[in-house]
């Protein structure tokens, strides 16, 4: 460190400041204390959290140092860490962009901020989100996933109605989910019955194009009926129905789930016994051929009261 006359002037006593060194030392000590306090707070509250959150979304950073340097340079942590908005990705305030795995997306410009690292899988223009952003997803900034919904609502003003989410907003992760909510007029009791068909046969391993089945089970389809009990409009066990499709990134192909639904009043079942009365169905987890995940009443055999004239809601997903 060199001392020039200019730098020494700061230490020279004056009437206003007779003890400049002491004052400077005091100020420096205060600054140091503040810095330590702030640093301690930051380290205590967010260091581990931020690293973990960022590591999960930016796995290409191999070391903590590289990740922290990136975070510091981009000010990702300006807001609460892992600040997730519409795309489900962390939002970078500095340049209004979302941090995807492969590149960043600027929501103001509606463009990726760089070209597609994987080339031109979506056509000549590789800075657009997806050729059709209403039906296609680009979960990592690399490949495109097509998702189609066929949402309908139940008969308006009728006994049963249902709403489907999302009806108009495209989902933003490759794990496509649709949620259906049932509504039944409060003066009615009976059963909502739904015919579920899952077609999982068109999925293949990238490595050798062999057929992929969930968990190596060999199961390529499900076909079953499930029932929600309705008592004076109150729906049990839940008034929601979730549809999710999720597949490894090492596969390609398409899959679909179709739900065909209708409401039957209690009087329909007065003289029906055995499998023809939903009250006698087993819970889904013990029904062979049914998706085994919940406590809904289910059967894999077509009941006599069923006709295929219900209301449909479908979802399908295609990915490369």
């Amino acid at each position, binding site marked *: 460190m060199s001392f020039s006359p200019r730098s020494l002037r700061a230490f020279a006593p004056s009437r206003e400041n007779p003890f400049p060194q002491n004052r400077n030392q005091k100020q420096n000590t205060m600054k140091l204390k503040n810095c330590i306090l702030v640093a301690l707070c930051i380290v205590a509250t967010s260091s581990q959290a931020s690293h973990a*959150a960022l590591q999960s979304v930016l796995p290409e950073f191999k070391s903590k140092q590289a990740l922290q340097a990136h975070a510091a340079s981009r000010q990702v942590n300006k807001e609460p860490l892992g600040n997730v908005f519409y795309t489900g990705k962390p939002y970078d305030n500095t340049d209004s962009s979302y941090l995807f795995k492969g590149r960043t997306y600027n929501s103001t410009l509606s463009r990726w901020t760089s070209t597609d690292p994987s080339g031109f899988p979506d056509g000549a223009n590789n800075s657009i989100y997806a050729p059709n952003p209403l039906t296609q997803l680009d979960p990592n900034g690399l490949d495109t996933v097509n998702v189609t919904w066929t949402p309908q609502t139940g008969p308006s003003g009728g006994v049963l109605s249902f709403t489907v989410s999302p009806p108009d907003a495209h989902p933003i992760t490759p794990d496509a989910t649709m949620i259906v909510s049932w509504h039944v007029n409060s003066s009615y009791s009976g059963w909502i019955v739904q015919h579920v068909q899952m077609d999982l046969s068109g999925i293949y391993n990238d490595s050798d194009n062999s057929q992929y089945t969930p968990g190596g089970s060999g199961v390529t389809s499900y076909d079953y009926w499930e029932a929600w009990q309705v008592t004076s409009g109150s729906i049990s066990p839940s008034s929601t129905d979730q549809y999710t499709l999720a597949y490894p990134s*090492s596969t390609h192909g398409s899959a679909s789930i179709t739900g065909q639904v209708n409401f039957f009043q209690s009087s329909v079942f007065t003289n029906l016994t055995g499998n023809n009365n939903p009250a006698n169905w087993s819970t889904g987890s013990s029904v062979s051929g049914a998706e085994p995940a919940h406590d*809904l009443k289910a059967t894999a055999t077509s009941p006599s009261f069923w006709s295929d004239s219900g209301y449909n809601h479908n979802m399908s997903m295609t990915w490369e």
Partner: protein
Amino acid sequence: MGMKPIFCRAAYILLFFLASAMADTKTAAEQIRTAPRWGGLDKDSYASRSKEIATHLEEFIHLPVNEAREVIKLALQEKVSASKLGAIVDTLYLANRVYFDIPENVEVKDVKTFGGTYIGGGNVGERKVVWPLVFSKDGTYALEGTYNAYAGPVYDVLGEFDYFSKKYKRRYK
């Protein structure tokens, strides 16, 4: 004369603890919201994804029951798309299983389900309620399964949390 500073200090300390508890729940909820999904995994990814998820649940599993419940509410509070909600409840499904010391297998007659994607395996007459997780004696845990499709009620996270909290103790403290 000395009373005022003492009261002030006490108030500061109280505020500090309140603020840090709120920060803990907020951080834990954010961690859960940003956790990577365990659906649609390649088998090769189980180990690495398990570690990532464990990091995201670390804050949550050490909170007292009332704060952990708050975290779940916070995590579900934000208005998100259906897919994002699906991702959050996926993580919360694991969180409930890590937080409570649930036996690996439970007799079918004693099992109560709350929706959710995922029941796998188990001995005859039993259900492996901790699936898709497997716990080691040293307290670590890892994924042993994944799922590819689900159709059924949306998982009632809080319902299951409350049910578990009546039946089981916490796994970690």
